[in-house]
């Protein structure tokens, strides 16, 4: 009997170790804890990379703002920090971790929104116990230059701010860089196919639960327009549709291109772990405007295009990437 307890203990220990090892799955990282610029209040201009925050209060991150001289403050406040990203981060998946934020946050990188967790008033919903992890699209990163992170926070009561956990930027390995990056704003509607009359704006990548569709499971559609030149449409292209939770169907200019997981059958289980690469048949993409629609079925919990890269790449570059990434024995 004692032997069994030892074995179980060893198993638990090894599980914990593997879990810890996973938590630092970056080949390099930048610690961005320490002094950040801070101001209570709310102003959309504060998201801008060009905004001058030199007169703002310096505050320790992570910490509760109640401990940094803002005792009893509830409501909106902004955090800003300027950082340099070294050349070694180029063409890698770059992740921004902000630990735990109490209660709701919205994050801007060089002025562009990259994600949100929880929901601001008037549809307030806290996310104080969610670990913040945002993918920074490569197109927004200025390698070797100044990059600005701006975090808008809303606290409904008790402790507030970027309160605890690792606050850092990590490089998570080589990533395929699309010729046409389609991360950012897409139109989104619930239902089996895209419906422009009920559409709302949504960020890709990112789960829809954090973007006004908390608790929604089932069918939804993402849509966006992409303008292409003749030079681009003359090549064979691959649509990188990222990692989707759970199943999807891709349509370009109304034509069905491909599907992953049980979109129609609603049989899911593995497809939310897989990255989508759809080769686009010749003649589908046209010079000028093209319409991309990604229909998604989510069986439960988080849903949407969760992880990038999302975009179009020529098959030639696509092949080069996988050749370079090949594991050699």
């Amino acid at each position, binding site marked *: 009997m004692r032997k069994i307890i030892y074995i179980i203990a060893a198993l638990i220990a090894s599980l914990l170790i593997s879990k810890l090892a996973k938590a630092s799955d970056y080949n390099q990282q930048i610690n961005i804890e320490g002094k950040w610029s801070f101001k209570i209040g709310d102003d959309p201009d504060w998201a801008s990379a060009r905004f001058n925050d030199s007169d703002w209060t310096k505050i320790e991150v992570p910490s509760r703002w109640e401990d940094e001289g803002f005792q009893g403050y509830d409501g909106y406040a902004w955090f800003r920090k300027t950082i340099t990203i070294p050349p070694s981060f180029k063409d890698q998946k770059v992740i921004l971790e902000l630990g735990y934020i109490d209660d709701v946050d919205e994050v801007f990188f060089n002025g562009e929104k990259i994600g949100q967790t929880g929901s601001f008033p008037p549809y307030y919903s806290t996310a104080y116990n969610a670990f913040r992890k945002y993918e920074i699209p490569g197109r927004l990163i200025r390698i070797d230059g100044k990059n600005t992170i701006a975090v808008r926070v809303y606290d409904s009561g008790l402790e507030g701010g970027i309160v605890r956990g690792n606050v850092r930027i990590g490089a998570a390995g080589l990533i395929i860089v699309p010729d046409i990056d389609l991360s950012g704003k897409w139109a989104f509607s619930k239902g089996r196919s895209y419906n422009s009359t009920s559409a709302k704006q949504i960020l890709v990548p990112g789960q829809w639960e954090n973007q006004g569709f908390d608790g929604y499971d089932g069918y939804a559609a993402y849509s966006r327009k992409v303008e292409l030149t003749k030079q681009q449409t003359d090549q064979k292209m691959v649509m990188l549709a990222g990692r989707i939770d759970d199943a999807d169907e891709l349509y370009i200019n109304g034509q*069905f291109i*491909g599907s*992953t*997981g049980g979109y129609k059958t609603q049989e899911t289980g*593995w497809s939310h772990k*897989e990255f*989508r690469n*759809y080769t686009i048949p010749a003649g589908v993409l046209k010079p000028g405007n093209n319409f991309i629609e990604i229909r998604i079925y989510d069986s439960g919990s988080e849903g949407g295009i969760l992880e990038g890269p999302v975009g179009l790449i020529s098959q030639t570059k696509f092949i080069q990437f996988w050749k370079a990434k*090949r594991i050699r024995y």
Partner: protein
Amino acid sequence: MKRTHQLSIILPMLLLLITSNVKASDWTYIASLEGQWQFSVGDDPDWAKPSTDVSGWDRIFVPAAWERYYEGYNGYGWYRKDFSIKSLPAEGPIALFLGCIDDVDEVFINGVKVGQTGSFFPHFKSAYNVERKYDIPRNLLKTTNNVIAVRVYDEGRDGGIVSGRRIGICYDNDNSLLSVNLSGKWKFSTYRQSNVNNENFDDSKWGTMDVPGTWESQGLPDHDGYGWYRKRFTIPANLNSQKLYLVLGKIDDTDRVYFNGNQLGRTESRNYNIRANADYRKNRIYEIPSRMLKAENVVVVEVNDYKGVGGIYEGPVGIMTEKDVEIYSDRLKKESHEFNSFWEFIDYAFD
């Protein structure tokens, strides 16, 4: 005590079996294709053409999931390999074996499409658990400078030519022993009907099934349970005076055979576990009593498949004379035994 005794015999034998080698039985290689292939992600119809230069492609080992080289890759991938033929037999079928391909494939030899399993977009259908076997027209093959190209689409998880005990082009050594070759199209139905065993039963409305071949590879992807095969054939006059045998290759899982309305034999172990896990490995040889023989004959095979693939899945299928059946049986005995399951081993050890 008795239990201990049995285990002391079984365990060392099981250990021995792990090291026993795998040998193809009736199918003999004329070109083994296991090993290094050229590979590229992406999709381009030109890659099927032998003239397309693929010298810049990566080299990967077949069979293996392509994730071994390209972590997390999903989508299209193409395999190419040049090969020569050792010696082309004068007659008999030639088949290409590619093991299991995840999910869909399309195969070209010297630029000519020889087969496809599963379905590509827009009507995607995975066939990841189907062992690929394609009949190859012999006039397609040259002695040297043959090019095989395999186009694969993988939806997710493992992808590519992932596994297989036999990867290559083979001819059926045993087929030369058949006096009447019964491989090809048989009448087939999955509905139980009365009088189905009767020689005069009307099967004109039935569909057909290729023999040998699994149901799963022929449009019945998930069929378990019963299937009835019927075949009408004539026996040449010169064989009438001889003792003849009906050979049905291998059947997954059990079968009952009727010859001109009479039960000829069956392979159906009494123990359920053996029936479901070992019977599919047995070679079917049934002696035909001379009183049953006619100039025109009808064979009915009732097959029961318990799980996975089913049907008369491996040849030879046909009529053999006593002399040839002896050669065939000797050949089978020489095969080294190899067991997929505990029950196969038990069946073998206590048979």
